[in-house]
């Protein structure tokens, strides 16, 4: 999949409109300066929108296209192209392709004339969708055709590429409409546009069947997506499998709400459960000691030791870790990684100290987040008490201090089976580089996909869902694989 940076032009400058509103403009400056500062190499495909033309129907920014084409950029230009004469003029100015929206929806005969004259490979059909309805003319009135009709018409004309934008998402940085793109049944090569705000969004789009390219706008201009990074990730989208992780809650040496498998002798024995999950395809095991009082510490270490003796996948252990000595004891007992929660909120230096002593790969921040008004708060004491600390800012701070990964649990969703909190996941995954394990709320296979695809999680965790056999790890992995998400 190609990653195509987009420049919206107005008055000779690069700008962004929020929700297509000409009254809400952010100006980024001269196109050449913007391209230089954002490191767009020659040979790149570039998406240009002449905003004034999209409103007035008359080309305005032709001179800029002419200049940029001389830099070896492969330009696709759109905005108010309604006649063969305009289409020809853009091509003569140096554009490689033209993007036609309004006409594709309203007047197929004009589109046919353009295709016949310039050739189908020169034409990209732009289709703006809001809530499944095709929109035209710069977002200001509804078109007369349904999306399926428009796609069919475009295909009949011999056009091979369609730029599909969910305009309710555009520029709002809430992520693209994965469900829309997945639902499309067409032979057209789709260019996805709108809402792409992280490299993870780009990777997720590249995993959807017929998406040939994605357009990045605001996130590119704001430096949140670096073109080189996005292209590198998309070049090898299947190298790194996403992980499925069962979690054992252990109290006084026993699995709480034991695993409900017929072929297990002792459903409460952590060792039996661990062996079973490894053979079922678990990529890692998390043990959370929910008793974790000082009196039970030796029991807990004994559990970790016995489990690690039988396990050949990574083992992460958390629960009641207060000091660097607690941390060391768990590693010595056989944990590969140790999760810290309450103690780190009270003493953030603990993260830095453990990272310096044992390496960042051994440190996992366990963050229990609860929605409070319009933000998320980090909870302490097993999710029971608010710390007053902003959960998203805390995750970012923990990364700086030296955390290898974040286990992010939605306290609101935990135990509800209503799905992971995608908004919480996006809030964290869009600002940290380290991996995030999604936890809390898994109820069906789609939830796991959404946490990875839209939430940007690098791993998904569930406990009772697996223990109760409502889903197996194999079910989840098979579904993810079918959805194009790489699994082990």
């Amino acid at each position, binding site marked *: 999949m190609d990653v195509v940076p987009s420049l919206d032009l107005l008055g000779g400058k690069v700008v962004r409109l929020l929700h297509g509103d000409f009254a809400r403009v952010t100006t980024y400056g001269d196109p050449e300066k913007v391209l230089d500062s954002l490191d767009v190499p020659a040979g790149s495909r570039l998406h240009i929108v002449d905003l004034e033309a999209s409103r007035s129907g008359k080309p305005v920014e032709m001179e800029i296209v002419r200049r940029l084409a001389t830099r070896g950029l492969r330009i696709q230009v759109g905005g108010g192209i309604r006649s063969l004469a305009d289409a020809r003029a853009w091509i003569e100015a140096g554009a490689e392709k033209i993007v036609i929206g309004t006409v594709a929806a309203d007047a197929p005969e004009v589109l046919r004339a353009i295709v016949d004259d310039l050739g189908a490979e020169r034409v990209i059909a732009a289709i703006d969708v809001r809530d499944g309805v095709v929109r035209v003319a710069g977002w200001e009135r509804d078109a007369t055709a349904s999306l399926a009709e428009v796609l069919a018409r475009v295909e009949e004309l011999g056009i091979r590429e369609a730029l599909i934008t969910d305009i309710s998402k555009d520029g709002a940085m809430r992520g693209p409409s994965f469900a829309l793109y997945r639902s499309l049944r067409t032979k057209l090569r789709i260019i996805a546009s709108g809402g792409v705000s992280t*490299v993870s969004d780009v990777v997720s789009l590249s995993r959807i069947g017929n998406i040939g390219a994605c357009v990045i706008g605001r996130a590119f201009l704001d430096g949140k997506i670096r073109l080189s990074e996005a292209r590198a*990730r998309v070049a090898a989208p299947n190298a790194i499998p996403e992980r499925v992780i069962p979690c054992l809650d252990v109290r006084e040496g026993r699995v709480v709400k034991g695993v409900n498998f017929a072929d297990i002798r002792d459903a409460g024995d952590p060792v039996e459960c661990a062996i079973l999950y490894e053979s079922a395809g678990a990529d890692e095991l998390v043990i959370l000691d929910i008793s974790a009082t000082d009196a039970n510490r030796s029991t807990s270490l004994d559990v970790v030791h016995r489990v*690690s003796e039988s396990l*050949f996948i990574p083992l992460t252990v958390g629960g009641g870790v207060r000091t660097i000595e607690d941390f060391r004891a768990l590693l010595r007992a*056989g944990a*590969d990684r140790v999760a810290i929660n309450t103690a780190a909120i009270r003493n953030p230096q603990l993260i830095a100290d453990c990272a310096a002593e044992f390496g960042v790969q051994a440190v996992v921040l366990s963050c229990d987040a609860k929605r409070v008004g319009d933000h998320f708060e980090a909870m302490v004491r097993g999710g029971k008490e608010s710390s007053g600390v902003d959960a998203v800012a805390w995750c970012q701070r923990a990364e700086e201090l030296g955390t*290898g*990964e974040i286990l992010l649990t939605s306290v609101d969703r935990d135990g509800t089976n209503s799905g992971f909190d995608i908004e919480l996941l996006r809030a964290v995954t869009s600002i940290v580089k380290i991996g995030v394990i999604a936890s809390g709320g898994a109820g069906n296979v789609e939830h796991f996909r959404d946490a990875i695809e839209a939430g940007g999680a690098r791993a998904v965790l569930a406990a009772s869902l697996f223990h109760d056999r409502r889903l197996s790890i194999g079910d989840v992995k098979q579904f993810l694989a079918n959805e194009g998400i790489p699994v*082990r």
Partner: protein
Amino acid sequence: MKTTLIDSPVANVANIARALRATGAELHVTRDTKEIAKAQKLVLPGVGSFIAAMRWLTENRIDTAIHEAVNRGASLLGICVGHQLLFDVSHEMGSTPGLGLIRGEVHKFDGSLPVPQIGWNRVTARGPLFDGVEDGVFYFVNSYAASNVPDEIARADYGGPFTAAVQRERVVGVQFHPEKSSAAGLRVLRNFVAWT
């Protein structure tokens, strides 16, 4: 044939010992230079710092013992930092010479992905060590790796291709942790233990 596991303090020896025993190896864990020099099948583990791991080898003359064993035709498997130690040099905080058993250098990942790499990664491999797992997924924890070296037998990608395993005659090394890579990792260890 007995497998000799070098008892480095800069390594997670217990986990590797357990995994080797699970593959049926008759295991001997030692840091005695005479025993290492006489070994027929050696495993060199390592985690954390290349510099610390190499210093331990040289200060205790384990490096000489390893060379002696390899020169006599012993098989040697390096794991993670133990794999990196096989190379000419590592550029972890300055440049530190390694054992020089494998041509090439170890560099920090310079891609855009978070470092260290922590997690599973797909490996394309060939050769007897990977018999049955030529297209396997293995567990990695590393900030440094060799890339594009002449003795590469396995390759993975982490923001760019890197060397996941090497082989030069009887000397092999794997950048991943076979002891944490479930059945695929145990298969690699079993292949090494059974290698004749």
